[in-house]
């Protein structure tokens, strides 16, 4: 039997030539890497209890690459992951997206799901840019790969109280008592925890008569509203989601109670489905939420692109902050010049974007990975549309209180 040596002169020369060619072309390798799209795993609750909001967040993907191109930024390759509104599924989907080649993660609307994804991102060393999630602990863990361009619950609350005072001063209507109702999930509990503490820092005109927590998957909130009404408060302070906001409004009408004001510190009350489902009954509530600055140039570009893609859907928090998370990813990828996770994380840490959409000086992250310069707005439902009523320098209308009685509309 003839024994093969495995290498002869011809093979050696071929290998040498190949090595030489690769060495000569190596600088182009960098160019090729920059030309490739960054693979972004976008994790959202696109089914389950939060499906409506997850789908809403996802809408902005349609317009993002076009806008990034206009800004001179690289397009992104979006890999979708449905968290099914479930913490365990969120964790598993994050693992799977990373396994399938995701180089950066974005998500995931809900604080509980985002917390699970953040753990995976940190363990696997893949950057996570949070689009929406307000629970403070996420950026208090000393994580190196987790970044949040969304206000924490205390930031939302602080701005909400400041904007409420501005609204009360502008309208001359100051409720003396409120009932605080909140959804009993991670976000709602975090907001409830911060509510009392942050409120003490402001001289609010009202006292909280009762705090009512309710199930996020509740189909009937008649008991909750009856209890709130019985407390005899002048106004409602809400931390809710979409479905429960609709349910609560229906119950307010049925139980013949129009509070002086509905002051929302979360999603639901300003969303398109809320406005469409309830028609004129949707008018009046004021939401104190992370929003967009209508005076910024990129806001106008995003509004135009969004209107073209979705003529019947208003731009909202879900779109704005999902877009900005993707903007951060593209900006960091351009500056890093690489898909290496550590290089991407370093680039995100050095982010300084002033041409953005959200209110405030722009996007930058502190040592904990939190954008602590963000500002919130107060928006009011008026005639089936949304107007910004505070802060004054980012407003396009004056607030109106008290709310018109439901039976007189």
């Amino acid at each position, binding site marked *: 039997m003839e024994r093969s040596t495995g290498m002869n002169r011809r093979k050696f020369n071929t290998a040498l030539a190949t090595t030489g060619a690769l060495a000569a072309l190596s600088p182009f390798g960098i160019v090729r890497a920059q030309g490739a799209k960054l693979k972004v795993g976008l994790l959202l609750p*696109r*089914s*389950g*209890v939060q*499906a*409506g909001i997850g*789908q809403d967040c996802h809408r902005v993907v349609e317009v993002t690459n076009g806008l990034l191109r206009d800004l001179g930024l690289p397009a992104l390759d979006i890999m979708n992951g449905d968290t099914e509104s479930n913490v365990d599924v969120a964790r598993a989907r994050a693992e799977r997206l990373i396994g399938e080649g995701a180089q950066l993660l974005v998500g995931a609307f809900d604080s509980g799901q985002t917390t699970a994804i953040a753990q995976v991102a940190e363990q696997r060393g893949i950057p996570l840019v949070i689009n929406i999630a307000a629970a403070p602990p996420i950026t208090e863990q000393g994580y190196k790969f987790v970044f949040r361009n969304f206000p924490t619950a205390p930031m939302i609350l602080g701005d909400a109280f400041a904007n409420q005072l501005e609204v009360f001063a502008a309208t001359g209507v100051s409720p003396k008592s409120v009932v605080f109702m909140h959804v*009993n999930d991670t976000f709602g509990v975090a907001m409830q925890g911060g509510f009392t503490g942050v409120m003490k820092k402001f001289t609010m005109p009202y006292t909280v008569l009762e705090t*009512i*927590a*309710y*199930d996020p*998957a509740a*189909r*009937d*909130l*008649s*008991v*909750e509203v*009856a*209890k709130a*009404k*019985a407390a005899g408060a002048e106004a409602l302070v809400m931390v809710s989601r979409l*479905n429960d906001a*609709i*349910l609560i409004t*229906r119950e307010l*009408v*049925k*139980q*013949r109670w129009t509070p002086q004001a509905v002051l929302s510190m979360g999603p639901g009350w300003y969303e398109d*489905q809320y406005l469409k*489902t309830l028609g004129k*009954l949707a008018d009046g509530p004021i939401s104190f939420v992370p929003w967009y600055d209508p005076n910024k140039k990129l806001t106008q570009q995003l509004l135009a692109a969004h209107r073209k893609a979705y003529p019947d859907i208003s731009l909202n928090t879900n779109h704005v902050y999902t877009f900005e998370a993707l903007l951060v990813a593209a900006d960091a990828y351009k500056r890093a010049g690489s898909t290496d996770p550590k290089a991407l994380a370093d680039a995100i840490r050095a982010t300084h974007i002033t041409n953005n959409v959200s209110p405030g000086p722009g996007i930058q992250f502190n040592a904990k990975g939190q954008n602590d310069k963000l500002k919130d707005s107060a928006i009011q439902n008026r005639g089936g549309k949304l107007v910004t009523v505070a802060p004054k320098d980012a407003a396009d209308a004056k607030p109106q209180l008290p709310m018109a009685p*439901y039976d007189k509309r």
Partner: protein
Amino acid sequence: MPVEIYLNVAASGLLTGLVYGLMALGLSVIFGVVRVVNFAHGEMMSLAMYLTLTLFSALKLDPLVLLVPIAAALFVFGYLLQRGLINPFINRPEHSQFMLLVAVALILVNLELIVFGPDAQGIRTTYSFDSFQVGPLIVDASKVYAAGAALVVAGALFAFFRYTLLGKAIRACADNYDGARVVGLDVKHLYALTFGIGSACVGAAGAMLMAVIDVTPTIGPAYTLLAFVIVITGGLGSMPGALLGGLLIGLTEALGGVLFTPSAKSMFAFGLLVLVLLFRPQGILGRKAGA
């Protein structure tokens, strides 16, 4: 807290409980006769709710009117399901029946997700936002109509089983399977009819609930569980027990929510279930095994 709040909440809980009771009645009828536990019960109710939603959107008919065709459609669905799919499993081990019906439930949920999407959807009738005021009581009009319809349907069902020949034949099958066969009853057909009647109950309950709550494809499992809690509390296989169980669960949830915390109101329903299982395992109106 003023006493009116308790009265209002109790009234609301009782009205909702009547509709729950009708839904659970279907489960109880099916188990009482066919001896199959329908683990797709809540999913069949969500199917009825989506049918109501579709017909309401297309024809603009009130859910109380749609109740009749929806119940008929669910009757046909239930009949065919039992005759074609469940009947071969009647004498098989209970875990086979369980897996079969869980599979049916999963198929229904996923079909609804494909066809209707994941968002909550509701209907708006002319009385969606109406309420009746009687002294200090303010009662939701939709719940009053739904509960009234539930009472009518339940009454018709009791009359059917008590006074019609067909109803008596079905009861004969439930009481003595072999005896029913000996006297020449077509047991397979009667089983399928019973499953159809139970499904019609859940169809009627679904149509009425559509006036009260929104529907999502994932609503089913919670209502399957609720139906079980109700029939076990009232007595599995007992028709009056199902209605009584519905009323008790509705009332317990409502008052528990007011007296303690609303987010834990389901806890009180399960607490009642535990008490019943401890002190009267056959359910409040159930018969003891072998009795």
